């Protein structure tokens, strides 16, 4: 148990992960393929540039849509509808955070590509600004354990690969994604409880 607690104490873990993976990979390149190092990094950068362009296109559509949703007053109605549930899950009264978090989760479930992210970022900022770190953690875990109900990419790939019944993976996928989301929820609760004890 001791070493797990030490890991919990590592602040800014992305820096640690980055340092370890980068150093190891660079060392391997140095000994096996020194000429491949720079092209590999450049190709990563290229991917980031292309992905950002894709994201820009997607966000144009969804941010425009969400602004209309906000202006029409529907966003407020959605927030009011979900607030009893959200108050219990995220422990917050903040209307805007509730709307953003609920919109994020429903866009996730529908599998709308790209749509959940802007709302998720807004909700996370809002949670962190109000000192509600646990809600931010929870929203991240719910997002990162894939609450998707219809795996559109997988079905498209299965059809492309000539599957007899492209949809027959729906049930096992749904069950395992439900389990992973529930496991994430539980593990987070446990880790929060452990920290409170300390």
């Amino acid at each position, binding site marked *: 148990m001791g070493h797990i607690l030490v890991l919990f104490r590592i602040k800014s873990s992305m820096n640690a992960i980055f340092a370890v993976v980068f150093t190891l990979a660079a060392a391997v390149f140095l000994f096996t393929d020194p000429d491949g190092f720079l092209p590999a*990094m450049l190709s990563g950068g290229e991917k980031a540039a292309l992905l950002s362009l894709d994201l820009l296109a997607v966000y144009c559509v969804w941010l425009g849509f969400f602004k209309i949703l906000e202006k029409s007053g529907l966003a407020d109605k959605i927030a009011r509808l979900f607030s009893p549930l959200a108050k219990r899950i995220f422990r917050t009264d903040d209307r805007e955070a509730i709307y953003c978090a609920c919109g994020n989760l429903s866009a996730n479930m529908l599998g709308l590509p790209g749509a959940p992210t802007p709302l998720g970022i807004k909700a996370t900022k809002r949670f962190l600004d109000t000192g509600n770190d646990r809600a931010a953690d929870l929203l991240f875990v719910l997002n990162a354990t894939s609450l998707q109900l219809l795996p559109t990419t997988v079905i498209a790939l299965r059809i492309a690969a000539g599957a007899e019944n492209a949809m027959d993976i729906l049930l096992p996928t749904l069950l395992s994604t439900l389990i992973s989301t529930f496991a994430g929820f539980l593990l987070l609760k446990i880790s929060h409880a452990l920290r409170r004890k300390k």
Partner: protein
Amino acid sequence: MKYFSLVIPTLFLAVFLYALIKKVKLYDGFAEGVKEAAPLVLSLFPYLAAILILSELFERSGLSALVTGWLSPAFSFLGIPPEIAKLVLMKPFSGSGSTALLSEILHTYGADSYIGRCACCAYGSSETVFYISAVYFAGVRKKRMFTPIFVSLSANFIGVICACLFCRFM
């Protein structure tokens, strides 16, 4: 599947009509929303670049193959076929990389084989954890980011183990 394609157009139509009734200026409002798109992408870009460069190095240096080799006995013990071990390891880092890998697996082993179905469920039930963490916590000086990342990775792994189990009899 046929009806699912109706969801998005209906959603847009319903919301825009409702907004019209509420006398919202659609053109101005839409443009106002889009205004936030470029700053949002710009704020994400540095973190995306760092993560994507890192995963490219991880992949091309052969580290990922090495780690896959080490872990595949442990994976088979948990019921995860070694053929999809690489996919399971790659998914947290790269969405496009794991999509390419899934397509490769489907073509090599067949979409209706146990390996193929297993790969689909493993792909569908897990998420690109590091990518999402880069996006959601971009520029946030948050202590203890390790907890949510570690929790999500473990939960996804539990999901993959279950997926491989379910695929045996579903």
